[in-house]
């Protein structure tokens, strides 16, 4: 749903136009966005930074040095020198951790094209190595949550109940926004929970850990790493692998709305044409 086809872009343009009908509304929107950005900046900062500002002369590893290069080229405009943040533009990244960078940059959400209700997922601008370098840089600047090394899914041989437990946790914690089928859903005023159908285990793990955009944070104190892996197991094995025993088409798993459309577009249409043929002149 977030693939960037021309049609989608047109749609987005269209929806933006509908969203901002007047200058007053636009200004209001800008103000709200600014407030949100400020809140994020302050919140994230106070949440993770133990009060230490990064120092310039700090020793950076070789990877982080590479990352700093990339940061100074692509991110510094909004996030400021040494990721301290810029008012009205972007929050400080001190303490957000490598996990956050890997999610935001790895899914193409950052760098943002423009300020809007929610950063769009798009084709990543940086490849895997570059993302790792950026992540390393941010990590070394201020610390924060990191994606652990190793497998992020549970093996069903050693933990046969992982799938069922993951499913249960998924329904308790995730479905309210991402839907039973993992197809995503709408939030208030143009925001949305994205589809999970092409999310990688790393991205899902990072998202739970850091709570990007409006997603709540599911820290390790709330969902243990094992529980996170179980959830990812359920998403990858049950939802992503197109396990739809009930047909060739799953109608997007959107539930009754697409089913209702199908019964008219396929069922009624087919039968009306049959009726036309029956009663037609031979």
């Amino acid at each position: 749903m977030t693939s960037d086809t021309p049609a989608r872009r047109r749609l987005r343009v269209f929806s933006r136009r509908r969203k901002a009908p007047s200058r007053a509304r636009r200004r209001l929107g800008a103000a709200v966005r600014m407030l949100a950005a400020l809140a994020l900046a302050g919140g994230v900062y106070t949440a993770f930074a133990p009060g230490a500002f990064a120092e310039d002369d700090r020793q950076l590893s070789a990877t982080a040095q590479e990352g700093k290069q990339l940061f100074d080229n692509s991110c510094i405009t909004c996030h400021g020198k040494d990721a301290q943040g810029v008012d009205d533009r972007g929050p400080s990244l001190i303490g957000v951790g490598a996990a956050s960078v890997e999610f935001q940059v790895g899914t193409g959400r950052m760098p943002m094209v423009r300020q809007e209700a929610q950063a769009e997922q798009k084709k990543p601008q940086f490849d895997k190595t570059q993302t790792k370098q950026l992540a390393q840089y941010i990590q070394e600047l201020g610390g924060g949550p990191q994606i652990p090394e190793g497998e992020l899914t549970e093996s069903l041989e050693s933990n046969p109940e992982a799938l069922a437990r993951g499913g249960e946790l998924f329904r308790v914690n995730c479905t309210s926004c991402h839907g039973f089928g993992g197809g995503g859903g709408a939030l208030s005023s143009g925001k949305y929970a994205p589809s999970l159908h092409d999310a990688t285990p790393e991205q899902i793990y990072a998202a739970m850990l850091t709570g990007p955009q409006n997603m709540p944070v599911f820290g390790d104190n709330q969902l243990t790493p094992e529980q996170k892996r179980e959830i990812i197991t359920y998403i990858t094995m049950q939802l992503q692998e197109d396990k739809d025993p009930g047909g060739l088409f799953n109608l997007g798993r959107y539930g009754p709305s697409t089913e209702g459309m199908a019964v008219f577009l396929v069922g009624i249409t087919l039968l009306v044409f049959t009726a036309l043929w029956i009663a037609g002149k031979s």
Partner: protein
Amino acid sequence: MTSVQHDSEADRQASTVDVFDPKVSRFDIVKEGLRRDEIEIITYESQFQGTNSKAEKRVVRNIAFLFIISGLAALAFLGFYIWWPWRFELGHTMGDYYTPALGLTLGISLFALGFAILAWAKKLLPHEVSIQKRHDGASPTDEQLITGQTAMFVADELAGGVQRRPLLKGAIGLAAAPLGIAAAAPLIGGLIENPHKGDPPPLFSTGFNPVHNNGNPVRLAREDGTPIRPEDISTGGQATVFPGIPGGATNEFADSPTLLIHLRPDDAEETRRNAEADRRNRGSMYGDYVAYSKICTHAGCPASLYEQQTNRLLCPCHQSQFLITRNAQPVFGPASRRLPMLPLGVDDEGYFVAKSDFKDTVGPDFWERP
């Protein structure tokens, strides 16, 4: 149809065909039947020139082909039904195609059969235009009068008789009314349940009522029953919590699910300011933590879509939106009432408890809510 029978005597006499005459063809007898049913065949002719024409042979071939397809697809259906692996297994397996295979083969079989029959009716059977007379409107006036008078006669005998005999009138009334109620009573009476029965009254209390824990404050628990501490929820995080009593997370306590939110400090500050200004929510927060009932005050869905940046709670059923920082007042959508706040506290062991039950009524609204 009654009118047809009514006229049939006259019809028979008007008949020009002696149906018992062996020389009369079957078709003439059919036509005689049609005449009696007031049907006139305008057109009834073969759709083909002559017998055994090329066109006819082609149509017959097509229809036969459809019948054969139908049979073959039905055989394929049986084959799939019996031999195709159908048990559910993880990962991509042949079993995924069991239902599609059944649907396709059965669908094709039935469609082919249907179209074979339709083509037969449409192409092979003679083209026909028939006209049948309608008999609309009321019955003949004399019939109306006779039936009406008969009804009046019956009414007069029964109702009029009762009218003339007051004792009977009273007695029937005395018999019928109680009997009617008596017949209805067990049907309805068995279903009546007092919604306010019970202590505490179920509509106004939840599993967080200390009654369920021998008068002690009830702990907040996860879905698996384990209690929850403040440090278990990260800033910007939320958890669905249940009363920490036996069966607290089951549908026995369908009004109890609660959303425990750890706000960012500045949001928490605003939330606390608003809560303190409110008579009922005063003192209900614990630090930066706030807990709201998860059951939407509109239609009872879990209003659990927590947007951690905009501090809104969205209900996915009817899109009501509640502002967390402002006592969960509804700011959009059909909900008219705020989400009740659970008074939070922490017990000696450091676990969250509900200091008391919700102070507002939880769940969808109703007439006698105070």
